[in-house]
């Protein structure tokens, strides 16, 4: 266990950013309570996807493990929660814990296989694991409801109002991101980074590279599972799509758009990408075309992502990596 004083010091250091982040969060909360309900839903989605992207970013930016199957753990989180309610008969409030646990368990099983490989082959094995998960959710009619999913098993948002649930999700995500931050700054985080940067050297130093990578994988899966659970509660439903390839790709786009090699990258990316894909389609029928060009423009204009741009403008925090 980490010494509590060191832990506190970490949180306090993170608090430097609170000067910036706290007003932002307050502004978001104000917007949440003042704007119409659909804005609250949008904010909830942004928060959930920010957590999903942040968890993927832990793997990508710090562990240098590119996953092409991270949606699997989002989906497992959603189904872990849903099935705990539908099949095990748990009250939804208690089932909230089941989602992330199932996701972490999935991460442990698949991760143990995947960390034996590196680079593109690691990525492709994560893809295979995710597709296997998707198929099981899609085809196991008696248990998972198959391709038409599970709906109508609970009051969406645990009966909270849109704004109320947005608030709940927002603060859950803030806590989760904070936890991720503490992990990144902890000795474990150092080990993850050491293995990510130079596996051979880390092994020479006596680190069990695979064990460290597996730990990172399970942690990332756990946090993706929280995001998935929050999402299932938001809609009061679970569908195989939640574990599908398109969400994985969205996650990758968010992380890269936000900026690799930075803690905040995934979060920024999620905010930008979600805003784009919410508002562009409202303006134009050919939204994919426009989104494609915007994405292309952003990539070409800032090849190091949004955080890279912030740094160039002198706004970025030092030592994000």
């Amino acid at each position, binding site marked *: 266990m980490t010494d509590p004083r060191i832990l506190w010091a970490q949180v306090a250091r993170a608090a430097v950013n609170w000067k910036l982040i706290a007003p932002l969060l307050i502004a978001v909360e104000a917007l949440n309570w003042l704007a119409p309900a659909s804005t609250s839903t949008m904010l909830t989605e942004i928060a959930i996807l920010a957590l999903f992207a942040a968890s993927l970013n832990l793997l*990508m930016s710090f562990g240098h493990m*590119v996953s092409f199957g991270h949606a699997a753990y989002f989906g497992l989180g959603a189904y872990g929660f849903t099935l705990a309610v539908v099949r095990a008969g748990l009250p939804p409030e208690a089932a909230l814990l089941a989602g992330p646990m199932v996701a972490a368990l999935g991460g442990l099983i698949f991760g143990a*296989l995947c960390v*034996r*490989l*590196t*680079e*593109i*082959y690691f990525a*492709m*094995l994560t*893809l*295979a*694991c995710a*597709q*296997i998960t998707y*198929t099981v959710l*899609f*085809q196991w009619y008696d248990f998972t409801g198959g391709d038409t999913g599970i709906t109508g098993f609970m009051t969406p948002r645990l009966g909270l109002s849109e704004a109320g649930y947005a608030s709940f999700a927002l603060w859950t995500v803030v806590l989760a991101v904070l936890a991720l931050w503490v992990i990144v700054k902890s000795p474990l985080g150092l080990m993850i980074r050491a293995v990510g940067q130079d596996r051979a050297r880390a092994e020479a130093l006596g680190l069990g590279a695979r064990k460290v990578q597996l730990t990172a994988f399970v942690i990332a899966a756990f946090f993706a599972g929280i995001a998935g659970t929050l999402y299932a509660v938001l809609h009061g439903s679970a569908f195989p799509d939640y574990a599908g*390839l398109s969400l994985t*790709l969205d996650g*990758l*786009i968010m*992380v*890269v*758009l936000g900026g*690799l090699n930075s803690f905040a990258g995934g979060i920024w990316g999620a905010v930008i990408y979600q805003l784009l894909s919410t508002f562009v389609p409202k303006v134009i029928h*050919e*939204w*994919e*075309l426009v*989104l*494609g*060009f915007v*994405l*292309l423009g952003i*990539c*070409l204009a800032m*090849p*190091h*992502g949004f955080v890279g741009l912030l740094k160039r403008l002198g706004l970025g925090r030092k030592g994000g990596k």
Partner: protein
Amino acid sequence: MFWIQLVNGLMEGMTLFLIASGLTLIFGVTRIINFAHGSLYMLGAFMTYELVPLIAPGTLGGFFAAVLIAGLAVSVLGVVFEMLALRRIYGADGLMQLIVTVALVLILRDAVRMIWGPNSLSVPMPDPLMGALQIGQSYFPLFPIAVFAAGLVVVGAMIWTIYFTRAGILLRAGTDDRGMVALCGVNEKLIFTAVFAAGAFLAGLAGGLAAPYGEVNHLLDTTVIVSAFIVCVIGGLGNLYGALAGALVVGITKAIGVMYFPRLSMVLIFLIMALVLIARSMGRQGGSAR
């Protein structure tokens, strides 16, 4: 039935190889995962749709001419994309290039939808290839046999290019060590552009060849891209012969699988890939699987 399924598998395998070959070629040299490969394939199919009625419709020659021109047109588009977009960010992280190709996927899909509409279209099969070769009670359709033959021609042309031309030497050198090629004074950018042109051509060609054997619509891109990747990975990314072997293995396993484990069809190719990758990781204890 087993032998017919084996033939079915070989046929599908060759189609998969045609799709995967361009992808693995591009990856081998540029290390770019070209997610837009399926989109280029789709464009090849639509170009063929437009060209077939113009060039001696119904004839074998007209069809193959249309497919070749479609491939070339797609190749030009690939070059334009490489020069205008990809070339600017070769310095950035490899993933940034992946996202740029994803952007191209979105653009092309909507563009195709705007031009040709969302409904499926049908490319007529050349008349001589409509029927079947009947041996006893067994039928072997002619069209895939012709595609198989075309695939063999492509394989032959590739081997010839790789081993007997200067371009092939550069290609092999570039795949092995692109830094060294640059040090030798070869214009690396030119190699990248050329490889992209060749890869896009192969994608367009594959799309054109497959077009009469199914529907042509704006969702073809995504149908194709994932299986193309898997084939490449099974064969070892960047390895053309590996891609051929991988494609045939996937095609045959799918066809045979219909007889013995039908419920697995949705996940079968992912299972094969997972098994190949896991076997790879077992084979090289502790090392990276490259």
